[in-house]
């Protein structure tokens, strides 16, 4: 299926042009939402996507935008399949995408997603967190104002140096 292999590269390129509605500086591919692209036995294209947060209200918009882009790219009968494993993680956001986030004014996820260490550390008033650099002035003198921000994926931070509030993409 040489022809199909050729098609798939074009499909991926098309999907890389679909921005995330909440974080338009990143594509749905860079965010790790698109998991797989296959050609089924009947010759139809199937794109597998995975939700970021369970309640992410952008998911329906993302599905719509992907269908729209695929239709315009010449795959109007493409199927969209939702997959739940492996579970989406910000660890899939690559170095390039992290730089784009920062340039856009959103601090990228600090470090890797929290994992269970077996230690009883679920609830701590003071938590050792990796330092977060202010995306505006670069200072590490920043404070987390709220873990829960304007969208499920972001926390609210404040820069004590340039006194600018900013958003942080939570590690999850």
């Amino acid at each position: 299926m040489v022809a199909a292999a050729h098609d798939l590269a074009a499909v991926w390129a098309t999907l890389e042009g679909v921005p995330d509605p909440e974080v338009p500086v990143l594509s749905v591919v860079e965010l790790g939402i698109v998991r797989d692209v296959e050609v089924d036995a009947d010759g139809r294209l199937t794109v597998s996507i995975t939700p970021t947060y369970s309640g992410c209200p952008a998911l329906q918009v993302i599905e719509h935008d992907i269908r729209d882009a695929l239709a315009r790219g010449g795959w109007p009968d493409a199927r969209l399949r939702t997959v739940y494993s492996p579970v989406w993680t910000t660890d899939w956001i690559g170095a390039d995408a992290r730089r784009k986030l920062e340039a856009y004014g959103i601090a990228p996820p600090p470090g890797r997603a929290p994992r269970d260490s077996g230690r009883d550390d679920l609830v701590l008033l003071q938590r050792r967190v990796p330092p977060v650099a202010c995306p505006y002035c670069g200072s590490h003198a920043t404070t987390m104002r709220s873990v829960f921000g304007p969208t499920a994926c972001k926390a609210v931070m404040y820069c004590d140096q340039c006194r600018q509030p900013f958003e942080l993409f939570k590690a999850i």
Partner: protein
Amino acid sequence: MAPALDGPVQAALVQYLLRLGDDRLVLGHRLSEWCGHAPILEEDIALANIALDLVGQATLFLGLAGAAEAAGRDADALAYLREAIDFRNVLLAELPKGDFAFTIVRQFLFSVAAYYRLEGLATSSHGDLAGIAGKALKETRYHVRHSGEWVIRLGDGTSESHTRTQAALDALWRYTGEMFLADDVDATLVRAGVIPDLATAEPKWLAQVTGVIERATLAVPPSGYMQRGGRTGRHTEHLGIMLAEMQILQRSYPGAKW
């Protein structure tokens, strides 16, 4: 696709998924009642975010329940077109939101229990259940932290916040046992190898909850009679009133979309 299951196992799976979905739908709706009313803006946003996570998890679990039931009901039909007697949530989730201490203590007691249950379910042999549980687990970790840290601040805060938080704990404690009740539904799924035995969830929950309550300078209520009924559709009068508000649009204008 999940492998085909025997009839009784499939029926148990539908019930189990309804329980998971209904706990989150009902508690998520209760939390959403704080939207625009929380003590400070950051907390308003936090409670709305947690509500959104819970309603999102409910959508996924109920969607899976509808698919397993194979009777043509999707997540919306299950959420908006069932009567109170058909809901399978624990009573803890449906109690009115109370004051801020009550909401936070309930959220903490529920989130820790949910955390250990989801941790087990993330290893389920049912691929979609495992995946959704794994995602919900990550979100729940944030809910446990947020509510647990508030319990410590409120308990070890002013005499007013201490009194209210202890009162919430005393009022809610008798509703916690139901979260760990295992009946034929659980046993059937464990025997069929669909879910792991979750008997260790309760002692883990008690250890985690006790640790936080003590750090909050609060007292763990004495163990005693535990309320139950939600898992079999015997609810408090509060659920019907909540559903009337939650379901009125779909009941009045069936199939309405916007």
